[in-house]
């Protein structure tokens, strides 16, 4: 066998391998894992957490997290910036409250104005339980169980049996 023919055979073999390799790659191309929509998932996760407790001001009762309104987009952008700047949740909320008022918070602050709101149900529960206790106690005093007479007992047995 001449050097040339060996060389040519070798070239052909290489080309074959390369060709097979390429087509194999194309055939078994694994789908690419999709990139997250957000640039920074950590910041985004925190944004969602905070904005779920904020109100979209131009919507009919939607949170800032889910609204598609333009102002909501702008406000989310602001909050993102504040998160990146290292602001705390409290600071971010007070940033918005000082510009838009308490209306923007879905979780009302606990202050004298909202004490009835936050503590009312609990107080009502205690009152309810106290009334329940008093009621049961008063009833027991009023209604003494009536003992069955023998006749009544016999009638009851008959009814139960058939």
């Amino acid at each position, binding site marked *: 066998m001449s050097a040339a023919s060996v060389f040519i055979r070798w070239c052909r073999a290489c080309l074959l391998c390369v060709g097979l390799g390429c087509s194999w790659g194309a055939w078994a191309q694994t789908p690419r894992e999709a990139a997250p929509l957000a640039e920074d998932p950590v910041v985004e996760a925190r944004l969602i957490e905070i904005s779920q407790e904020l109100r979209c*001001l131009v919507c009919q009762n939607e949170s800032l997290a889910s609204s598609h309104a*333009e102002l909501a987009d*702008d*406000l989310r952008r602001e909050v993102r910036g504040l998160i990146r700047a290292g602001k705390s949740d409290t600071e971010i909320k007070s940033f918005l*409250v000082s510009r*838009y*008022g308490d*209306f923007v918070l879905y979780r009302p602050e606990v202050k004298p104005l909202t004490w009835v709101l936050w503590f009312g149900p609990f107080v009502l529960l205690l009152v309810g339980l106290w009334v329940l206790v008093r009621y049961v106690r008063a009833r027991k005093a009023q209604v003494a169980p009536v003992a069955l007479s023998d006749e009544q007992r016999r009638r009851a047995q008959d009814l139960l049996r058939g």
Partner: protein
Amino acid sequence: MKKFLLPLALFLGLLVFLAVGLQRDPREIPSPLIGQPAPAFRLPTLEGGQTFGPEDLRGKVWLLNVWATWCVACREEHPVLVAFAQKNSVPIVGLSYKEIQPQDEAAKFEPSRKLQVARERSVVWLQRHGNPYVTSVMDLDGRVGIQYGVYGVPETYVIDQQGVIRYKRVGVVTPELLANKIGPLVAELNRS
């Protein structure tokens, strides 16, 4: 048996609140910025080549009117503002809010070209509808609007000589409003 009257009493109380509530507008949000200093900013003006900020008008009582060419309601209030500007010496500064909207073709331009397009559109609009403003600033991304608690267009602020916001109107400025609220407030502030 007074305890049996309790449900009725509670209900009547509720009824009173509901009746009062009927007369309120749940969408009207009072601004927490009343009594606070007007947030500082420095924005390019409509005329080009200059900037403006609220401290430029320190010592005067003035109005800040948030508007845009795409805002339909602004067209309604604009003649009212023009008439007011002609008769009074109260400076009105316009804040062009997000003139280029997200769905706009121009939204994809680079910033200086975007600003130019916004300026052009605003100038044309003001030529057609009248210009009540001593100057108008361009808030393209709406960030200054957020500083001022803007959530709808149009909105109007009254700012005093110390740069403190004294009044905010969300919605169109009507002649009645000018006559009964804004006019007297401005006069009072100018006196003190």
